[in-house]
């Protein structure tokens, strides 16, 4: 039994080694502790007159106190993550309609206007934007002049830093050394893809934070029942933040299984189920109490929304067909960082063979399988959920490789059956290096510094391999100004449009909250352009259709929907641009609707 999150490795002794664990004398206590970095534990079969007694220690495992060096490493790492993620977060990437929608829903919660700024239709469970609502006032107060969505991204910065810290702890609890745990964090939080995705107000970022907390608790070294119950709470909060993360729950079960002791496993697993199931059930229960669980003619419903997401939503097609959405999506991810996406996916498959990395590997494999399923719908932020598991497996494999290269003699992977089919021994001998060479390697490997050297080499190689791919992305993330168009448009509207309380304006959600705060009437004064055609509660306030609209702000997403929303199309057709910000496809136009 190990008290810390290190693993005891037992191997067959070499010919010149002896180590016997004998039965302790009456007054003695034998303590089997985790070996230090340069120690090896060897156990052999007891002789006929020897007995080995191992009993579970009756003192609880002490809470792990991380050494100062490791804490400094973590603190420095988090500072770098905060700096890289936070630098230029207001101006890159471009604020999007999705981000604006989640922020607007958070605005509705914070101001007591219900669960969404328009009729809540169970598109997603509301917990993520409830958290956003609870925290958004802080950056909003500190940065009053900025776009609402941009300043709210500082909440996401907090989420990213917390997630990075949790991933470090999780990596340590999976037996990774501090340096490899740090590598996992670097891959997870400093990949340009991660910087782009984690800066944005996406529900998936909240879900990942809670799911990482659940994994950390599942691997609690004390194997405490209440930690597993808390893991259930965190897992439920993850699902209530973004329902799609529920697909990695089987991997969490693997972690719980591995993180529990045989004698208490039945009970700790029950504790997990007792928190995760009822908490998730609160969501359908809420719908049931509102009479909105089952589909009906005149109301929204949870199951109706779910069916739409699963069945009716058009699939994004295949990763291999350049005409399909999934192909373009994959390439947009690869554009930001091919390292984490491709190497991470490969690492997940290999890591499946390692017992200690099995839980994150299972999570990664499930996410990959889900993405590959034919006909499925894949959103742009899908990759966010995969990032921590890809990073953990990649770093974990690097750590195992370093340990192997450093001569720790540990088989890098617990071999599955299909690897155990080894070639005949004579053939293997011939394949092996000459004896003098392997002896020399062993001598070097036996030095304490050789392992450190090997580990450092792995980290350096990994960073060197990734750096060219990452350089462009980081320069872009640190210097681009993608939000000037929206910011100028909002400033222009505030300056040029009088009597805003009685003016109707169609916009996308990216600046919806800004315009509410500029004095437009929420919902029916400043109108999320989709709702002008799709929400009966809004269309009923526009009896004359587009003629009741005063202004339209067209952005890329509004132009992308051209031809599907008649009222919006008509308003655009019957309007003239009064101010244009930016140029080309990304331009923002503020258009005045004119009667024919």
């Amino acid at each position, binding site marked *: 039994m190990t008290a810390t999150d290190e693993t005891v490795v037992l191997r067959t002794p070499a010919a010149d080694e002896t180590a016997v664990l004998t039965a302790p004398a009456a007054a003695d206590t034998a303590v089997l502790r985790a070996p230090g970095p340069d120690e090896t534990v060897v156990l052999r079969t007891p002789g006929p007159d020897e007995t080995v007694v191992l009993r579970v220690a009756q003192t*609880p495992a002490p809470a792990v106190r991380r050494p100062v060096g490791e804490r400094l490493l973590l603190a420095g790492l988090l500072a770098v993550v905060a700096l890289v993620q936070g630098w230029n977060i207001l101006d890159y990437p471009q604020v999007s309609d999705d981000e604006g929608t989640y922020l607007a829903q958070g605005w509705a919660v914070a101001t007591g206007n219900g669960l969404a700024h328009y009729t809540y239709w169970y598109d997603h469970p509301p917990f993520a934007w409830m958290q956003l609502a609870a925290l958004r006032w802080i950056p909003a107060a500190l940065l009053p002049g900025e776009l609402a969505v941009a300043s709210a991204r500082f909440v996401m910065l907090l989420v990213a830093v917390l997630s990075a810290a949790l991933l470090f702890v999780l990596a340590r609890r999976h037996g990774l050394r501090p340096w490899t745990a740090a590598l996992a964090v670097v891959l997870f939080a400093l990949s340009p893809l991660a910087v782009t995705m984690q800066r944005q107000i996406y529900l998936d970022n909240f879900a990942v934070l809670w799911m990482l907390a659940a994994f950390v608790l599942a691997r609690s070294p004390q194997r405490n029942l209440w930690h597993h119950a808390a893991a259930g709470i965190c897992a439920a909060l993850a699902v209530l933040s973004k329902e799609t993360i529920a697909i990695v729950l089987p991997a969490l079960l693997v972690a719980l299984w591995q993180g529990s002791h045989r004698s*208490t496993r039945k*009970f700790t697993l029950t504790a997990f189920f007792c928190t995760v199931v009822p908490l998730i059930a*609160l969501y359908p229960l*809420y719908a049931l109490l509102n009479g909105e669980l089952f589909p009906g003619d005149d109301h929204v419903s949870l199951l109706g929304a779910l069916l739409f997401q699963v069945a009716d939503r058009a699939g994004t097609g295949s990763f291999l067909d350049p005409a399909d959405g999934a192909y373009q999506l994959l390439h947009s991810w690869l554009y930001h960082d091919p390292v984490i996406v491709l190497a991470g996916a490969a690492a997940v498959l290999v890591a499946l063979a390692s017992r200690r990395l099995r839980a994150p590997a299972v999570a990664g494999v499930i996410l990959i399988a889900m993405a590959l399923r034919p006909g499925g719908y894949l959103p742009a932020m899908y990759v966010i959920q995969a990032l921590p598991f890809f990073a953990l497996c990649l770093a974990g494999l690097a750590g195992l490789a370093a340990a192997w290269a450093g001569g720790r003699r540990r088989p890098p992977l617990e071999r599955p059956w299909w690897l155990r089919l080894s070639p005949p021994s004579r053939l293997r001998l011939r394949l092996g290096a000459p004896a003098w060479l392997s002896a020399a390697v062993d001598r070097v490997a036996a030095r304490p510094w050789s392992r450190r050297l090997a580990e450092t080499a792995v980290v350096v190689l990994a960073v060197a391999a990734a750096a060219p791919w990452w350089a462009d992305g980081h320069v872009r993330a640190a210097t681009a100004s993608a939000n000037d168009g929206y910011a100028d448009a909002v400033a222009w509207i505030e300056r040029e449009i009088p009597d805003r309380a009685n003016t109707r304006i169609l916009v996308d959600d990216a600046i919806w909250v800004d315009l509410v705060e500029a004095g437009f009437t929420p919902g029916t004064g400043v109108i999320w352009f989709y709702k002008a055609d799709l929400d009966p509660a809004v269309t009923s306030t526009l009896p004359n259709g587009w003629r009741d609209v005063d202004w339209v702000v067209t952005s890329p997403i509004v132009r992308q929907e051209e031809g599907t929303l008649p009222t919006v199309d008509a308003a655009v057709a019957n309007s003239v641009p009064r101010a244009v910000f930016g140029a080309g496809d990304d331009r923002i136009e503020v258009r005045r609707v004119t009667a024919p």
Partner: protein
Amino acid sequence: MSVVIVVLSVLVGGIATVTLWWTVHAWRTPETLAGTRFAEPDRHHELSFSLLLPARHEEGVLAHTVTRMLESTHTEYEIVVIVGHDDPGTSAVAERLARQRPDRVRVVVDHHPVKNKPRALNTALPTCRGQIVGVFDAEDVVHPELLHHVDHAFSTTGADVVQGGVQLINYHSSWYSLRNCLEYFFYFRSRLHLHAEKGFIPLGGNTVFVRTDVLRAAGGWDGDCLAEDCDLGVRLSSRGKKVVVAYDSMIVTREETPDSLGALVKQRTRWNQGFLQVLAKGDWKQLPTVWGRALALYTLSGPFLQAFSGVVTPLGLVLALTFDLPAAVALVTFLPFIPTLATLLFELVGLHDFGVQYGLRIKLRHYVLLAVGAPVYTLVLSYAAVRAVVRHLRGRNDWELTRHIGAHLGDAAVPAAAVVPAVGRAAVVPAPRDSTEVAA
């Protein structure tokens, strides 16, 4: 309305959470679970025992119990059988045993005009020669290795009191005996250890061992208390005496559940009333720690809190479904069900563990019965709690009257022949004890 419902829900949810908390306490970590067992003893005996065995109208089982106790592997012990002066049948059996094994068995005659278990024990206490006094009931099945383990527990921990495990075993007899067995399982396996940790233990009625000098200094048992064992636990705890609990499924003392539902209700009424007496006596206020006092207050009033939540929980559900409450308030009314359902799930898992540990074949119907019986059992216990309060307020503090009233009311659930053994076999949750109070 909403406020009342929210307050009630939070209250009931709190009670259910506490129940859940001590239900799972022993399984908190693998180390906690390992720590609940007796430590593996060496073959070294340090202490001598006086084992008190009050027997009243037990001529049928007494000989078997004593014979079994004589198989003990310990070397230093005496068995003191306490019989009433008005009970020639049991006396004859006891005398015969004493003649057969004069080195081990003694008989003490209790001359109290009104008999009960604490008075019988007090009669025998001055005559005890052992360093440790142990209490058993006449129908207990005692494991030969028990004293051996208890000796070791005393010597290694320096405890003043050692509470061993008691387990009801006839889970298959009826739906309530199944739940009864599980109650015992969780009580001894889990909850008692939490009590020991927090410094307050309501001792059980048997398989309890006390250092003789400590017991004498405390003045023995309270002869007027219906829960004399619980009372002793409170008094010893408040004097700062160290109590150690040890459980090992191999060496628990085995007992049987009450013979009928009526007997179960009467047994529970008596314990609950005893708890009220102990609460009123106020010794628990002297407990050294706040935790201990809080736990004592909660434990002693526990049956009544359970009765309260047993009634309020379904009421809340009905209110939530019938009244037009705001969705958020309605959600809150469901919260108490989370710990309640969790407790039930843990009971099902515990039933599996119970089967594994005692080598019993638990079938699917037993799991179903355990789940289905839960609400009914709660109502039965609630009824017993209310009944105890009523009797306490009317000042009826004696067992004899209860039985007579029960008989007069035509309590057909208790066959006349079963009354004496049923009372004799009474055992306890939260504290197994056996008080055989019968009028002279």
